[in-house]
């Protein structure tokens, strides 16, 4: 098989490529240049777009003895991931750019270009498993639960999954590092990347302010009392506790959390932890890794990267996905994905559009409107 190995310059994608070579495939390495102004050198674990990462990917390809190229996807990335990220925050939502990158770049732009050029598969270092099933290939959680990245792959459809390879899904991370060292890959000790690759210094609020400017507004409690001010709703995420900078303590002395963000009114609503609890949510743009469920579905859902699996029921209604959680979840942020699992198998996903408290309370009577 002719395999295009996406090589970020990190240890995971290097070992993934090595395994494809060892399996006898004809492997070509590509590093995706995503940033328009690549940082020369990484700081800490941040950044996946730096010149140093391109260098590390190239050196890994040398060790593996495979051809290596750098593909410039910076324009697509800027439009489909970065601009989308900013627009989502501007709309009061909390997007997951890695998921968007997988959907729009790695398993779309790169995959399509690879297929056109005669490749059969795109291989990445994601921790997830592709297993044969009765109706075709199935996407499953990785064996290493701490590293599992099936959540950010939940947007992929059956055609994309059939053209993908995730060679690391059956291996715990420490073993991948040991394997990298044993194979002579110099990136064996390179730190994992955690942050948003296009915000090199990790200052998301600063990045958003530079793009969106200052849009001052009020921080209010659930009955509308003004508690403080802010420089822009894009600095907040539902469930956030830190950095609210409220001069007045709550009457009961307990910590307050962001409950709701309304860019139109420029208000951020805060309240007690219980008010964050969500029992129902609605997702838009549902997508499925295989067949869409026909009747009410029962399984578990994950509501954020590295979040826990929560038992839930779901159904499609007028193209929207309605999800009812069996136990309340806290701090569910619109813009994040709800990914549906049947055991370890990813069934599909949707983008969280609105949430409901689901018990008696102020927000129950007036569900958070779809924005």
């Amino acid at each position, binding site marked *: 098989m002719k395999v295009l190995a996406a090589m970020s310059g990190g240890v995971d994608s290097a070992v993934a490529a090595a395994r494809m070579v060892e399996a006898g495939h004809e492997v070509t390495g590509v590093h995706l240049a995503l940033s328009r102004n690549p940082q020369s050198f990484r700081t800490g674990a941040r950044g996946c777009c730096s010149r140093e990462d391109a260098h590390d990917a190239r050196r890994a390809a040398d060790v593996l003895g495979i051809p290596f190229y750098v593909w410039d996807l910076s324009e697509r990335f800027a439009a489909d991931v970065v601009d989308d990220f900013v627009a989502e925050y501007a709309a009061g939502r909390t997007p997951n750019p890695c998921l968007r990158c997988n959907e729009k770049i790695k398993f779309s732009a790169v995959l399509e*270009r690879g297929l056109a050029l005669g490749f059969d598969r795109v291989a990445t270092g994601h921790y997830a498993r592709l297993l044969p099933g009765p109706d075709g290939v199935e996407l499953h959680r990785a064996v290493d639960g701490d590293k599992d990245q099936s959540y950010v792959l939940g947007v992929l459809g059956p055609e994309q999954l059939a053209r993908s390879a995730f060679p690391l899904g059956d291996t715990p991370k420490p073993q991948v590092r040991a394997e990298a060292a044993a194979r002579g890959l110099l990136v064996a000790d390179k730190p994992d990347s955690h942050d948003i690759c296009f915000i090199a210094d990790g200052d998301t609020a600063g990045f958003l302010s530079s793009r969106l400017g200052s849009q001052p507004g009020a921080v209010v409690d659930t009955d509308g009392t003004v508690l403080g001010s802010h420089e822009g709703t894009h600095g907040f995420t539902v469930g956030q506790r830190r950095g609210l900078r409220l001069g007045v303590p709550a009457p009961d002395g307990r910590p307050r959390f962001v409950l709701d963000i309304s860019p139109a009114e420029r208000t951020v609503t805060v309240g007690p932890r219980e008010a964050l609890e969500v029992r129902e949510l609605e997702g838009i743009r549902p997508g499925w890794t295989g067949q869409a469920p026909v009747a009410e579905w029962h399984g578990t859902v994950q509501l954020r990267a590295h979040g826990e699996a929560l038992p839930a029921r779901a159904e499609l209604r007028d193209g929207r996905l309605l999800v009812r959680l069996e136990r309340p979840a806290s701090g569910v942020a619109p813009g994040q994905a709800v990914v549906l699992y049947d055991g370890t198998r990813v069934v599909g996903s949707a983008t969280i559009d609105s949430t409901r408290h689901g018990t008696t309370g102020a927000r129950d009577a007036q569900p958070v409107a779809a924005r």
Partner: protein
Amino acid sequence: MSARVYLDHAAGTVVSPAARTALVEGLALTGNPSSLHASGRAARRLLEESRESLAASLGAHPGEVVLTSGGTEGDNLAVRGGWRARRAEGRDAVAVSTVEHLAVAATAAALAEDGGRVVGLGVDADGRVREDVWDRVDERVAVASVMWVNNETGTLQPLDRLVEACRRSGAWSHSDAVQAVGVLDVDFAASGLDLLTVSGHKLGAPVGVGALLVRREVRLHPVGSGGGQERDIRSGTVPAALAAALAAACAEAVAGRAEHRRRASELTGRLLAGLAASGLEGWRRNGGGEVSPAVVNLGFEGVRADDLLMLLDAAGIDCSTGSACSAGVVQPSAVLLAAGADEATARSALRFSFGPTTTAEDVDALLRVLPGAVRTARRVA
């Protein structure tokens, strides 16, 4: 890796056997050419013999040969060193064509940091400096630099017009001739140029050595400071063994240039005729009618050059896109953009370049895979 079909001689050609022998023999000498003892004198003798040989090959006086680390250093010395030498005369500008290699273009642009100006000499649709721009080389220009042969397209530049404009205005004339030596008849004295850059690895010497020819009346300012070993223009211990390799390669290349031209013209004709006969549509040769026979720059409609390069690479063929950034991202050709091409066209060009070892079989191997590779690359949306 199986045998490669190497069609990227303009990036770096094979080290000639004579250069290899000269290098190895030179490495056997112990000593620094600047030392005063017998060993030092032996190294100095090899160095000066190499300089004399190089001068003879290029139509220069030995005193006009400043040995360098390669083409980029030579261009830096000529452009920056020339500007520094003459700004006190009120010559605060350098004039450079808009299709120069970055060794000249970026050096000129960097002079702005020190208060310098860049006068651009625009080109026509073939990438040749236009007739109507030469009066821009005026009394405020310190150095005017126009390459002999364009590195991407092979286009020959009107150096006689450069020399004429410089004589009229009093500017120094410089030409980066790294793609010309060994192909065209490069004679420094006959050219009338004040400064000419040569690079070793384009003509059969190893990477890491080159020369700047500096007419004796021209006093450049140094760019780097140090011992001033080369005419007080260039500092650093001169590698006698590399100089010997450069001299040997240059002598061979110059002696063989008429034959190389003839063979390269045949290979170019074979490639163009073969492509025409293949039925492939939507391709053209860039660079116009007056081009080096050793460089064939082809544009393919609806293709991204980096896709095509990858497909050819996989098929065993080495060729080149215009340029890539330090991370490896292929850029649209600045030369084609300067010649008025749109960005898609500037991204669609590949350069094939021939050297003394290139054979008709190499061209035939390219012709067997190129049309199919272009069709595949066109499938990319």
